[in-house]
């Protein structure tokens, strides 16, 4: 079963990996920071080695985003992201794992989960069970 993991971040400046620019992270002691970085690297290595990571993508700064939406006289394209929130989508991962519980476990181990939020969503399939 495939899942999309959406990593949200609220960094001081847009720089990947985003969590290292998060005020919450910057407020940690040096030793604590080293632990967080090490855990993040371990998670990445783990899901690569297990064959669970399908794809991982880092997104450019939201200032580079353009949004198309309905306007007077048709669709208009404006500068900036769709949602003007503090927390922005920093990147996404596609994972393929055995259970929803494992997907949630992976999401919870992203450092961003303790700083902002990491959302995990099942990806729909085009197959169906016999009914």
């Amino acid at each position, binding site marked *: *079963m*495939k899942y999309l993991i959406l990593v949200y971040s609220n960094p001081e400046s847009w720089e990947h990996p985003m969590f290292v620019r998060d005020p919450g992270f910057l407020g940690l002691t040096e030793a604590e920071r080293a632990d967080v970085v090490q855990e993040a690297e371990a998670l990445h290595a783990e899901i*690569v*080695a*297990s*064959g*669970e*990571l*399908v*794809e991982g993508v880092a997104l450019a700064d939201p200032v580079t985003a353009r949004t198309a939406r309905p306007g007077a006289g048709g669709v208009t394209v404006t500068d900036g992201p769709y949602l003007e929130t503090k927390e922005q989508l920093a990147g996404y991962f596609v994972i*393929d*794992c*055995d259970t*929803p519980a494992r997907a949630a476990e992976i999401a919870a181990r992203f450092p961003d989960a303790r700083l902002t939020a990491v959302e995990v969503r*099942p*990806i*729909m*399939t*085009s*197959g*169906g*069970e*016999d*009914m």
Partner: protein
Amino acid sequence: MTAPPTPTPAAVGELLRELAPQVLGPLARRSARFEDAEDAVQEALLAATVQWPVEGLPDEPRAWLRTVAARRMADQLRSEVASRRREERDAARAPADARLAPAPDTEGDVAAGVDDTLVLLLLCCHPTLTPSSQVALTLRAVGGLTTAAIARAFLVPEATMGQRISRAKQRIRGARFALPVGAEVPTRWAAALHVLYLIFSEGSTATSGADLHRPDLTAEAIRLARLVRRLRPDDGEVAGLLALMLLVEARRTARTRADGSLVPLAEQDRALWDGDRIAEGVALLTHALPRAILGPYQLQAAIAAVHAEAPSANATDWRQVVALYGLLDALAPSPVVTLNRAVAVAMADGPEAGLALLAPLAADERLAGHHRLPAVRAHLREMAGDPAGAEADFRAAARLTTSLPEQRYLRGRAAALAPSS
């Protein structure tokens, strides 16, 4: 000298998949290094894929593969010895070639071949592996599929599937290449049959014809189940699993419309069911049931057989289906079995009886967030003349499913029940 007729690449592929476990088994047994033997056999298979369609089949294809694989493995060992010098112990014992060289087939080897393939399957389904790793490794080592083909079947990049397979091989490094003994025997076999079942259901829920290069996992699972059945003819659960696969596969063309939408069992055009597969499944079951120890696969196959032999949904022997689900619920209880049993009870004794069976499942955590409970309840509420309740349940189920065709079906049922305004 006339050149031998050259086989088509497809024919070569089919032959190689059949020979793969027969080549890998003895090599893994003799070398006691499954992961290296597996790599060497994959290289030999690749070499054959390239050479045979051009040069024709060798006189003894299996012996050819065994020789090439043994040579690759010997090369590999030698280079390890040379570069790292950590294999001195191995090298001192015997020259690598002598240890790995294929011995001529004797009768003892034929028996060993039987065991080797089964040992291989059980090793690939080792309890330390996750289900998806067991599936991937089984398809490669026993099924002889390439990593690229397995990746296409599961719609993931080849690198992802390659990682999954090499991690799985690392995990079972050092596991003994022998049939399990003692108390773990039943659980090891149950795991292996479950892996074949997972391969089958991955294939049978896939949309047909979307990608011609995607291997047909349903056909592959049936082929592997046939192989295990040949090697374990007295195991009733193996027969039951193969029968179940054949009986479900028989309905394949009736399950979906041309536009990809799903047709539930009750509405399927039974003329489209594959009579040959049904006959084979029923015959397997008829042979196994009186002789073997009863198990969940035989029971599920028996239920599928009752459906297969019914001229229509209404003319189905629902009493028998209820009785079989009762046995299954006692033997291998699960909330999914209870759900199916509730449908059968509703058909035999009326929707209220079915709904009564469903009631306790609402509190079952194993079904929490799953679409199947509201989907089944919706059907039973519709039968019971509760269109509002049924509509709400169909909509709830449609929101929870992660299958696009199921969602379309469930929304369609909800829309049909909505009060017209």
